[in-house]
């Protein structure tokens, strides 16, 4: 697969929509301008403080494996920022550098205003991380984990007990407090791990593949936790290779492929990169007949495809692009295709 090697962004996405020249996109643009003019007259909107700033970041492991190359982005306060990519794309490497667990080889990264290499100690006091596939000790209870972590992190005994109870109640773990984690479901165990991370009220939470291996219910429980965190003003950076997770949780996302950022922007902007923003499915009416999924590149082409399909007596339906379509368009293969 040829690597596209391009960096699309939200602005690029909007431009490509605008270039369609349709009345709809022109109208959206016009209303957008009006709104921004009005709001700028009333209040001056300060840009949100960047909690994470990454510039030209690269990582080559001691064995020579190049894991990251020229990664640049910013994450403002209170955002859920998602790193989306295949296994081995470099997401975990990037997260571990930002969480001060791994040293970059080139470039610069700062977290909460501090350099990740020179001022790691100042960062560590204000962040928390749930590493990929982290798991609780099977022979300890959920309460043991959260209480002992609070004590390790310097909380006095009475406060640690109070804090443990409040976190466990908040995340519906209190009823399971005395059970060994070996007896908890995958979703509950993952909630224990996230609860551990929250013992110190972090300003920035790193979640590395937080729902890997969980059933749909467990995944939803973790998503709900993330949403609760962001309501409190916590910034969340999470990695995932689940499209639905990125779509449901992220305010903005970066698509990482072979250590490079191939897209940076909102989910909607990413979808705008999938063909012309609309897929046309042309199917034979007979059972087991031919089925084609087309991504026309202009309004004219959409019309032609529809007319031809109807003339040939085929069923023509439309499907809005998904994040997966956008991923395939940008990366050149499915997220599950590790060999691509």
């Amino acid at each position, binding site marked *: 697969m040829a690597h596209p090697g391009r960096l699309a962004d939200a602005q690029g996405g909007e431009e490509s929509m605008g270039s369609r020249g349709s009345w709809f996109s022109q109208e959206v643009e016009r209303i957008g301008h009006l709104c921004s003019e009005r709001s700028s007259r009333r209040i001056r909107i300060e840009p949100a403080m960047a909690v994470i700033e990454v510039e030209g970041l690269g990582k080559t492991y001691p064995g020579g494996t190049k894991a990251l190359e020229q990664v640049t982005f910013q994450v403002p306060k209170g955002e859920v920022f998602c790193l989306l990519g295949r296994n081995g794309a470099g997401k975990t490497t990037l997260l571990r550098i930002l969480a001060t667990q791994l040293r970059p080889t080139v470039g610069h990264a700062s977290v909460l205003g501090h350099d990740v290499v020179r001022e790691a*100690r100042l960062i560590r006091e204000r962040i928390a991380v749930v590493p*990929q596939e982290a798991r609780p000790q099977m022979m300890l209870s959920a309460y043991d984990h959260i209480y*002992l972590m609070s004590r390790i992190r310097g909380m006095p005994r009475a406060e640690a007990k109070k804090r443990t109870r409040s976190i466990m109640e908040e995340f519906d773990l209190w009823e399971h407090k005395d059970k060994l984690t070996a007896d908890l479901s995958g979703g509950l165990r993952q909630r224990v791990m996230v609860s551990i991370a929250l013992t110190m009220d972090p300003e920035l939470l790193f979640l590395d593949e937080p729902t890997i291996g969980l059933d749909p219910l467990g995944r939803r429980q973790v998503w709900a936790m993330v949403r609760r965190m962001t309501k409190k003003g916590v910034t969340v950076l999470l990695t995932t290779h689940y499209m639905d997770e990125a779509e449901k949780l992220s305010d903005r996302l970066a698509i990482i492929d072979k250590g490079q950022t191939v897209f940076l922007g909102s989910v909607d902007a990413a979808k705008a990169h999938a063909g012309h923003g609309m897929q046309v499915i042309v199917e034979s009416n007979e059972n087991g007949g031919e089925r084609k999924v087309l991504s026309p590149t202009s309004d004219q082409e959409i019309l032609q495809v529809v007319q031809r399909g109807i003339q040939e007596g085929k069923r023509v339906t439309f499907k809005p692009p998904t994040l997966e379509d956008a991923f395939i368009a940008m990366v050149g293969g499915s997220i599950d295709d590790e060999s691509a």
Partner: protein
Amino acid sequence: MMRAREAVYIGLFDSLPLLRDPMLMILLSLISFLPVLFIFVFNAGESAFLQSLVGAIVLSLAFAGIGSAQSVYFNKHWFRFQDIFVASRVSPVSYAVGLSVSTLLVSLPALAIAMTLLFLQTPAGILGILAVTLVAVVTWISLLLLGFALGASTKNTRRANSLPQLLGLLLGFLPPVYYPLDRVPSYLQPAAALIPTTQAAQLAKYYAGLLPLSAPEITFGWAYLVGFAVVLGLLAARLAHWTDP
């Protein structure tokens, strides 16, 4: 004070599963004393029994030290608590001390009984017992450092379990620790003397009043033990990282 508390709670966190299972703890604690039982049952004489008891005391801490390899490996690669601690205000020294202390907790009960027995059965006296303890502690530190180096460089879960056991066999059960050095064929004795646990056992038996040693032998024994600890310290510093390179 804060760092000491950090270390104590990390140690408690690491060892609590075992502390909550006293039956398993007693069994693990007694493993290094099983050969003493066999030697006692097969009645090889009081001297042989006491020599094996001293050997067991040294090895009890040595095995605890090697056991740190599993703590280091599983906390880093399996539970991933090391990554959680790195991204927090916990210091690497607290983490290392905490894991080290947790290895000791398992062997302390059996060790206390063995020390009392040694005190009552030998002419060593308090000073002798303290010297035996010092030898055992230096051996523990050496093998603890080996465990850290091993646990940090192991990439395979199966090896993380089997390598410490293999090392335990090579350093504990095969060399003349439970039994006297002169039981080893004379042509193998110089090789056996190169094993640090042999040197530790020789010194401990001497301080317990069970074996005569000359001044040069004592000096060599200590120099060998301390040198071994320094080399393993350098190895651990090179291989065991707090943040990954």
